[in-house]
């Protein structure tokens, strides 16, 4: 099914401003960065998490532990969507028990990825709490899940696709709303 660009939602500059704002909101909401850890969901949540962690570090002058989560082993559609997804490594090199976990992903859609991520994190320990930050919230939730920090709310139709590009993976920073050609 071919898709064509409908409208660009963010460019490199607006994406950077959004991430700066989210970094400030995280610090404000948590009254500092005590016990704060940041976990990015593969694939595009990881570079976004790195950038947000770096911005928080620049603002607060402390280092923030950063981890990578692969949720493939926790998916609820393993035998429903062939071919099977490639499992990549989870790398969370710190204990998360009693930590304030900020979970980061690029797009919040059905909520199923976040459900998998929550189960996965809770299997690793018992965090004090988990908050969710996403670059784009496009609606159409299938589970009772919401984000604590949202870069941009974008009402979409189910036929549309939100494409997030990051320099680390795609060579450019942009968010594009695509529709069927």
């Amino acid at each position, binding site marked *: 099914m071919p898709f064509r660009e409908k409208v660009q939602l963010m460019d490199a500059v607006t994406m950077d401003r959004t991430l700066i704002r989210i970094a400030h909101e995280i610090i404000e909401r948590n009254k500092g960065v005590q016990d704060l850890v940041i976990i990015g969901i593969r694939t595009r949540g990881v570079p976004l998490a790195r950038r947000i962690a770096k911005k928080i570090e620049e603002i607060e002058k402390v280092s923030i532990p950063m981890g990578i989560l*692969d949720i*493939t*082993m*926790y*998916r609820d559609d*393993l*035998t*429903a*969507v*062939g*071919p*099977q*997804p*490639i*499992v*990549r*490594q*989870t*790398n969370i090199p710190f204990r998360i028990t009693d930590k304030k976990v900020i979970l980061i992903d690029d797009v919040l859609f059905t909520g199923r990825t976040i459900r998998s991520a929550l*189960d*996965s994190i809770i*299997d*690793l*320990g018992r965090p004090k709490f988990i908050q969710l930050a996403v670059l784009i919230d496009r609606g159409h939730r299938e589970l009772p899940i919401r984000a604590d920090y949202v870069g941009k709310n974008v009402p979409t139709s189910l036929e549309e696709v939100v494409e997030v590009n990051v320099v680390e993976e795609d060579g450019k920073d942009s968010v594009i709303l695509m529709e069927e050609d």
Partner: protein
Amino acid sequence: MPLKRKDLLGIEPLSVEEINLILDTAKAFKEVSTRDIKKVPTLRGKTLINLFFEPSTRTRTSFEIAGKRLSADILNISASTSSVVKGETLIDTARNLEAMYPDIIIIRHSRAGAPHLLANICRASVINAGDGAHEHPTQALLDAFTIKENKGQIKGLKVAIIGDILHSRVARSNIHLLTKLGAEVSIAGPATYIPVEIEKLGVKVYHHIDAALEGRDVVMILRIQRERQDKSYFPSLREYFNLFGLTLERLKRAKKDVIIMHPGPLNRGVEISSEVADSPYSVILEQVTNGVAVRMAVLYLLMGGKYEEVVS
């Protein structure tokens, strides 16, 4: 690229891409075993049957732990406690198990081809956990994983496989896998233990251990499989050790950073001396640890590929 197979019956039919997919997937699963909670829900609701017609500690336990860490339900059937002793045929046993809707049957059998027979009559995925002297694919995969962890890559490595090649399914699976991935494989053992025309698999044959060890990166030692032998292949265990047993003295001919592997169980003082088995060169217990990760990857990949099989 997904693994588009219902069954894992051997290394011989696998492509290099499929082998690499399994090894890469195993990396992710290895991390699960290091967690406080060593369990992920990936195969929740799947039923696995360990059907073992031959003795096994490592392989059966390894599959059981792999299945349990993926949240599958796994049960063990061994020939001595099953209806096999009442005279049931393999096909009837398989059809009866199949009637209870298992998702994967893991079989070990003394006859080559038994897993293939099962794969043809069962809807469930079949994994060969060793069939006679034919293949033992998950052993070769965990050996490859261990070599890659220690040496970075397999291409260009010099590997020696020493011991009872004739009765060894581990040797056959490893020869297939290592030559596919570009290693230079040589084998050594008493002439009675070297299968006729084994050179056709792309290996070099030595009849003296010292020549086989010269400049090797990896040395795999195989057990003398006395339970498979109705006649004598060599005069005595002591003579075997004197001529083919791996000692620290002999090991000096290999590369300084050589790794020693053994699929187990060890017969100390027969094919390998205790000082070598317990030396820093030995990665024998790493092999066991990696076995769980590799089997988790195989179970995951066989289950995940199911749907595509059905729709195509």
